[in-house]
């Protein structure tokens, strides 16, 4: 039992930090441009596939350095030449633009790399168990993922809170016109933030690629969970996104490892339902419903607190 708790906590925190790597970029972009980037998970997928391709050519470590700036450049170009012209048509058009973009990126990835998973392997340098805990070997690569996400989290926090760039970005979030009057190129700041946000998603993609499955549907699988994170945390709230990321990471990881159902909870007292519809609900295990736990959480949060955990009232 203790083993399960320790391992699941580690995995859950790891998954949560990965989610936050993406959710942070998404949140900052949302509070800055007012548009939720539907294609954010697609940039994560692009990161994974670029990482795979570059590591096949020149190795994993250069890939970790090259792929995120590449994806970031694509993201910046998308903001400059795609989103900015659409901006005048309103937020719905912007959201739809990113929706179409996500659709197109998935198709392009399918054309280039195919529909089946690619063979993206953990680099040999990190392919050993980091430590053994209760007879379970914990892979070093996962510790590396955790380390990378914590370092980036800390770096982001320091940049945003302690540096001049962070100051300007924060000011541009709330008072873009004033920042413009003070002589800063707000358009370029928006473009850079979009680029950095998508690059962060790409970092998550490169480091998650070998550990999870690198496949053309990975954006479609992760995207909705990402949006659940930002809505549950409260749209535009960075601390909220952090809490929601960890919460959903932990909930999902723990749910996967619990093999209980309503029927087993009642043990011998459980009535044996003959009706197959009721029996389905009665016998479904918690591990089976793990993929839909985030959405349950979403509905629950919406009933109790429509603006999200740390969200402000709708303006």
């Amino acid at each position, binding site marked *: 039992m203790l083993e399960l708790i320790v391992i699941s906590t580690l995995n859950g925190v790891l998954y949560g930090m990965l989610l936050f790597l993406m959710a942070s970029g998404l949140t900052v972009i949302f509070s800055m441009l007012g548009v939720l980037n539907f294609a954010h998970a697609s940039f994560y997928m692009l990161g994974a596939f670029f990482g795979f391709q570059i590591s096949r050519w020149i190795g994993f470590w250069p890939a970790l350095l090259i792929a995120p700036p590449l994806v970031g450049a694509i993201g910046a170009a998308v903001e400059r030449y795609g989103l900015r012209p659409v901006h005048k048509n309103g937020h*719905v*058009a912007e*959201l739809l*633009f990113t929706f179409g973009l996500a659709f*197109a990126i998935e198709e392009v990835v399918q*054309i280039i790399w195919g529909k089946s998973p690619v063979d993206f392997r953990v680099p040999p340098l990190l392919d050993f168990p980091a430590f053994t805990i209760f007879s379970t070997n914990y892979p070093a690569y996962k510790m590396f993922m955790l380390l990378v996400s914590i370092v980036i989290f800390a770096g982001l926090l320091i940049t945003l809170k302690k540096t001049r760039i962070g100051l300007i970005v924060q000011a541009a979030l709330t008072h873009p016109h004033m920042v413009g009057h003070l002589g800063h190129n707000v358009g370029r700041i928006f473009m850079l933030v979009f680029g950095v946000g998508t690059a962060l998603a790409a970092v998550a993609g490169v480091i998650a690629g070998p550990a999870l499955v690198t496949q053309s549907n990975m954006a479609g699988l992760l995207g909705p969970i990402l949006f659940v994170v930002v*809505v549950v945390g409260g749209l535009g709230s960075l601390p909220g996104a952090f809490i929601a990321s960890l919460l959903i990471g932990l909930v999902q990881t723990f749910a996967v490892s619990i093999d209980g159902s309503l029927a087993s909870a009642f043990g011998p007292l459980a009535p044996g339902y003959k009706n197959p*519809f009721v029996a*389905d609900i009665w016998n479904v295990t918690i591990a089976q419903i793990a993929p839909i736990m985030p*959405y349950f959480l979403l509905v629950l949060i919406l009933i109790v607190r429509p603006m999200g955990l740390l969200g402000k009232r709708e303006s």
Partner: protein
Amino acid sequence: MSDLSNAAAAPGSLGAAKFRFYGWWIATAIVLVVLPYIFRSGGALTAFSLVGISIIFSLSYNILLGQTGMLSFGHAVYYGLGGFLAVHGMNLIAGMKLPVPLPLVPLIGGLAGLFFAAILGWVSTRRSGTAFAMISLGVAELVASSALILRSFFGGEAGISANRTKLLRVFDLNFGSQIQIYYLVAFWTLIAAIAMYALTRTPLGRMCNAVRDNPERVQFVGYDPHVVRYLAFCFAGFFAGIAGALAAINFEIANSAYLGAVQSGTVLFATYIGGVGFFIGPIVGAVFVTLLSLGLSDLTSVWQLYFGIFFIAVVMFAPGGITGLLMMHRPLLKAGTLGRVLPSYLIAFVPTLAMVAGLMLAIETIVHYTVNSDEDPKTKAFGIQFDASSPITWALAAALIIVGFFLARKTWTRVGRAWDDATTVAREKGVPA
């Protein structure tokens, strides 16, 4: 606007306006009846049935997006649940020999859509804007994933099938042949379209528009935007359920793909490409997108990519969709200045077409190299043969794209100038733009 002009007009022209109004619907009905006599092949009938289903679904979606301003990424939930309930209903009716004929089955789907929209909608519509879009996505994922878990109701991957010919027969119609299904779909499409048009004319329909345009003011007037959004959501769910039931009748099966994200995306594409600003927009979009997806899939293997690029192009350059683009020209047509714009269109058309052709050539060549590189390099797309390995093809594609792009930019600026001229003249003639 047309209300005002009707009210101001003399009684005689009121009758004419009424005649024109009902004339549209009667003409539509006649076209629907005559259509199978012109296109007799089985494939055409199937395509028409699919178009009809898609029209109801897109119109129901436009109650949300166009009329109430709610962008939903999960409208297929109500379509799919309507389909599933219709299939279960058909099996139940056939099994218990209930006196219910097939033409009433879409109502089962509609009520199912209404029921689930009433349950899920209250939570979904608490927020508007981006948050609503994300919530609809989350709810859609919740339902779609649950469909794979609750196997006995949703039938797992395979889905649940039914036999539409086993129901009570009225007038000896067994609904075995596609022509009978076509008329069933056409009948329901007409009924649903009239009902949804009528809905836009009711006070509720007007309040929906108000909630879309200025929810704060709606609150000041004394309405609750949440309730208005909720009611619109329920109506949309009802009509989506009808469309889902018709699809289930047409295919005699309902599976989890009905509820999925692809279905939700398709209806969004169809509605937006057609144009959300006019009632007829989703109809145009549904016809266009359904026929395009049926036609393109035969011509090229990557039709979905073209589809996505086309959608992005519509969002970027024609946010009003196809109908919005056409309706823009109405004031010019009235003022008689359309002739000033048309020549510049023709000039702009040539380099734009060249650029598009170059893009398509490049895409097809790349696709050939990545997807089936071991095959013969002389490949075929859109019925045109070309050699994917020859440098001429590559050079041609690059030249078409680059030259086409620069020329197109120049010519479209000219279109803009001609457009300004024409609208200025039209405004001077007193035609409101």
